[in-house]
C-alpha cells in the first residue's frame, strides 16, 4: 500500500496511527498527548485487522488528561503496549538510521527490541538487567559514601551476573540468527557482504569481583552488557564511520528485512520516507523483497517513486486520506 502526498500532508501521521493502533505506542515520541490533533480533547484510533480468517479490532484511546487505554475486540487490555502480544509491526523511519550511525546505546536498544520480538519469554530481560544494574550502582555509591557495608553489594552483583549472562546469551542468539538473512539482504541491496558481530563478553562473577574496588571508587558498574556494542560492517568496512548516508540507510533496511525473515508470522511493515534517497535499482530490489510480506505501507511524495504497482494507493492531502 502506498501513501502519497506532499510534504506536510500527513503521511507520517497516518503511519504513526497504524503503529499506535497495533503496538500501543508511537515509534516517534513517548509523549502520547502530542499524538492528539491540535485543538481537540483526546483522540482514538481503531482498526479492523484481517489476519487469515480472523478479524480483530484493536482500539487505542488517548483521553484529554489521562493515560492511554486499549481494547482488543472490545476487551480492555492491561496496558496499550500489550497489543504487541497480538500484532507485530516493524517500522522504518529516518530516525532509525541511528542504529547504524548513532552511538552504541542505539544499537543495544535495537538488539533488545529484536530479542523481545524473537524470544517473547525473554522480553523483560533487558529491563530487568537495567533495574538490577541501577540497584548495584546505588549500592556501590552507598558504600563509597560510607553509608553501607560491602556485603550489601553482593546480592546485586549476583543479580547483575545472572541477568547479564542471560541478556548476553539472548543478544548473541539474536545476532546469530540475523547474520545470514542480513548478509543476504545487503547483497541484494548492493552493499556487499554485510556482517554482524556482537562485541562483548558474557559477564562472570569473577570478572565483576575483580572490578569491585574500582567500581566502588567510581560508583558505577564498569563491566557488562550495558556497555556492549554490535559491529555492523559491509565486508571489512565498518558502516558507522565509513558508510555513506545511502549505504547506512540500506544497512538499516537490510536489518529490518533480516528480522522479518526470522519472525514466525508476517508482520505489518511501515516504511516512512524510505524511497527518496535510493537509486532506481535499489528501489526495485526493496519493492520486490517487500512484496512478499503480508502487508507493507510505504510513503512517498510521488506515485512514480515506487517501481512496482501497489495494491492500494492512498492519497493524503491536508491531513485527509482518500
Amino acid at each position, binding site marked *: 500500500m502506498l501513501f502519497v502526498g506532499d510534504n506536510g500532508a500527513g503521511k507520517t501521521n497516518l503511519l504513526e496511527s497504524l503503529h499506535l493502533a497495533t503496538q500501543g505506542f508511537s515509534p516517534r515520541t513517548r509523549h502520547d498527548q502530542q499524538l492528539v490533533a491540535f485543538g481537540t480533547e483526546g483522540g482514538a484510533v481503531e482498526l479492523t485487522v484481517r489476519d487469515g480468517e480472523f478479524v480483530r479490532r484493536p482500539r487505542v484511546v488517548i483521553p484529554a488528561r489521562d493515560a492511554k487505554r486499549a481494547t482488543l475486540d472490545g476487551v480492555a487490555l492491561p496496558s496499550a503496549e500489550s497489543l504487541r502480544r497480538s500484532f507485530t509491526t516493524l517500522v522504518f523511519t529516518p530516525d532509525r538510521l541511528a542504529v547504524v550511525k548513532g552511538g552504541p546505546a542505539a544499537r543495544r536498544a535495537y538488539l533488545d527490541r529484536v530479542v523481545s520480538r524473537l524470544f517473547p519469554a525473554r*522480553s523483560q530481560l533487558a529491563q530487568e538487567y537495567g533495574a538490577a544494574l541501577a540497584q*548495584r550502582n546505588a549500592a556501590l555509591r*552507598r558504600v563509597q559514601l560510607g553509608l553501607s557495608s560491602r556485603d550489601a553489594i*553482593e546480592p546485586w552483583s549476583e543479580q547483575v551476573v545472572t541477568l547479564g549472562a542471560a541478556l548476553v546469551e539472548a543478544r548473541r542468539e539474536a545476532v546469530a540468527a540475523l547474520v545470514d538473512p542480513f548478509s543476504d539482504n545487503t547483497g541484494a541491496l548492493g552493499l556487499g557482504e554485510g556482517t554482524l558481530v556482537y562485541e562483548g563478553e558474557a559477564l562472570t562473577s569473577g570478572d565483576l569481583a575483580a572490578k569491585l574496588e574500582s567500581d566502588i571508587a567510581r560508583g558505577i558498574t564498569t563491566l557488562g552488557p550495558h556497555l556492549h556494542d554490535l559491529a555492523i560492517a559491509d565486508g571489512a568496512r565498518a558502516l558507522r564511520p565509513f558508510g555513506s548516508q545511502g549505504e547506512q540507510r540500506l544497512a538499516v533496511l537490510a536489518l529490518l528485512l533480516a528480522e522479518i525473515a526470522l519472525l514466525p508470522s508476517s508482520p505489518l511493515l511501515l516504511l516512512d520516507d524510505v524511497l527518496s534517497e535510493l537509486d532506481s535499482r535499489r528501489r526495485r530490489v526493496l519493492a520486490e523483497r517487500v512484496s512478499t510480506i503480508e502487508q507493507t505501507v510505504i510513503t512517498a511524495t510521488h506515485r512514480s517513486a515506487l517501481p512496482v504497482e501497489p495494491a492500494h494507493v492512498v492519497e493524503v492531502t491536508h491531513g485527509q486520506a482518500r
Partner: protein
Amino acid sequence: MFSPSVDNLVNQLTRLPGVGSRTAQRLAFHILQRPKDEALALASALEEVKERVRFCRECGNLTEEEVCVICLDQRRDHTTICVVEQPVDVISLERTHEYRGLYHVLGGALSPLDGVEPSDLRIDELMRRVEQNDVREIVLATNPTMTGEATAAFLADRLRDRVRVTRLASGLPVGGDLEYADEVTLGRALSGRREM
C-alpha cells in the same frame, strides 16, 4: 488552603502509602462530613493500635503480646521458619492452612535505590534464631520481584551451610488456561519444570 487544621489532616493522610494529595483531600472531606463520634472512633482506633500492637520479639509479626500466638503455639513445627517481607504475607500464607512451621518477618526487601540495607531488615535476628534454636529448614518466601529475589539470594548465601534452604516455586496461576498466561510467566514456568 482551607484552614491550617484541614491542611494538617491532608498532609498526614498523604504520608500513607498509595495516597496522593487528591485522594488525601477526598478522605479529609469525607471525615469532615461524617458525625464527630465516627471520626473520633477512627482516631481512637489509631491510638489503640499504636499502643497495643507491637512486633513479636521472636518473628517480627504483629502481636499484642511480647511474643505472637504463632510463635507460642507448641503444636506448630518449630524446626521450620518461613521468611517473608511483611506481616500481610503471614496472613496470606496462614490462609492456606497448609503451612505448620513458624515465620520470620523481615520488614521489607533489600533495595539500595530506596536506601534499604541488610541492617534495616530483621536479618541478624533471623541468624540468631537459626543459631540458638533447632532449626532445620528455612523457606524463603520473599516476593518474586527483583528486590525479593535479591533478598532471598542474600539470605541463602548466609544460611546454606547451617540449614536446609528452600525457595517458594513460581509458576502458572492455578485454574488458568495456558492460553491466557503471558510469555514471561510461561517461560519461567518452563525453565522451572520438574520431573514426573
